[in-house]
């Protein structure tokens, strides 16, 4: 294909180029009036962009964006429901066993355990989603959806948690961009591994930002996420009151689930055509 043909084909929106690009390139290669045909293709490519701005064509994008914004609220609702079930089950078992000093432990384990099925469900759900735009944008929608929850459900001031959410968005957004690039190059396993490990680090980093600004302790800050995500006793990271998990409410679980959802969405990216 000539450089000029490649250039005008690059003007098309990606879905149109992926679908019809080779056929248009074939006609350009056999064109009897290459100059006129190149101009025709360039004009049509720009017309496709103009038409892409109509509401009918924007609707799938708007629906997908709205779905991403609503997802954290749905995850929070599902998490609270499963958490209530887990906590009730722990309390019932403790009551039957006649153990009275298990309230805090049950609470911590229930809050950590409840996140796992929702995170698994989020990955499954994301595997069935077909975003009309790149999955690398998913963390932006999820962060926007999580923001009202951050403002509503917060044991301390809003700013530390907003800073944590911003940090999570920047880290997960960068990771998703890298992972989508890997999927497009056919390296799906490496992409999943990058986002899984990087996602955990993004959560650790986000809550370290929260911990250092809200709790004022660097040692507590780094251990905040692992401790709350695994349902461990916060006193082991030097939180004497042991109430760091209370202050963060459902945010560690919510960002874990959102990270899992972003990971699932990345796996739906398509491999680039050669």
């Amino acid at each position, binding site marked *: 294909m000539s450089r000029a043909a490649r250039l005008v084909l690059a003007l098309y929106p990606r879905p149109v180029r992926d679908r019809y690009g080779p056929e248009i390139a074939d*006609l350009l290669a056999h064109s009897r009036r290459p100059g006129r045909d190149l101009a025709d293709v360039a004009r049509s490519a720009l017309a496709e962009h103009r038409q892409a701005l109509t509401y009918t064509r924007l609707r799938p994008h708007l629906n997908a964006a709205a779905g991403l914004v609503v997802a954290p609220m749905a995850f929070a609702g599902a998490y609270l429901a499963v958490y209530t079930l887990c906590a009730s089950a722990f309390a019932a078992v403790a009551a039957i066993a006649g153990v009275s000093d298990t309230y805090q432990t049950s609470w911590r384990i229930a809050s950590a355990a409840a996140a796992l099925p929702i995170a698994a469900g989020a990955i499954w759900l994301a595997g069935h989603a077909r975003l009309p735009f790149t999955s690398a944008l998913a963390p932006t929608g999820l962060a926007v959806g999580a923001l009202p929850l951050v403002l509503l459900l917060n044991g301390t001031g809003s700013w530390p948690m907003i800073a944590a959410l911003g940090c999570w968005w920047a880290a997960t957004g960068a990771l998703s961009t890298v992972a989508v690039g890997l999927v497009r190059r056919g390296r799906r396993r490496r992409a999943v591994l990058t986002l899984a490990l990087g996602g955990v680090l993004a959560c650790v980093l986000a809550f370290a930002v929260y911990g250092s600004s809200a709790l004022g302790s660097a040692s507590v800050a780094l251990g905040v996420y692992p401790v709350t995500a695994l349902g461990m006793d916060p006193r082991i990271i030097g939180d004497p009151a042991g109430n760091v998990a209370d202050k963060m409410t459902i945010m560690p679980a919510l960002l874990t689930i959102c990270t899992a959802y972003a990971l699932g969405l990345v796996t739906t990216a398509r491999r680039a055509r050669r």
Partner: protein
Amino acid sequence: MSGLTEFGRFSEPALLILVSLAEGPKHGYAMQDDIAALAGDRPGPGTLYGAIRRLEEQGFIQALPERERRKPYQLTDSGRAALQAELARMRAVSTAGLRRLALS
């Protein structure tokens, strides 16, 4: 008319593509040749595939498996019906127009 009026400036290429495919499945290159013979003007690849995309989206035509590295397209039943309706409308307009010209 069921659909073609929504094609805006692509309405003529869309109609010519449907007329071309009424004869049987064709790939892009064959359509260009056929339309050039029909209308005296060869549509550019961008114009042709802009119309093909919209016709495919509306379900008036469908792609067939590749043959000799080229993808042929064929009319669907709704495409055939839309073409029939449009040609009937054009015939009515043309008949009325010609009659009036003869009368004037």
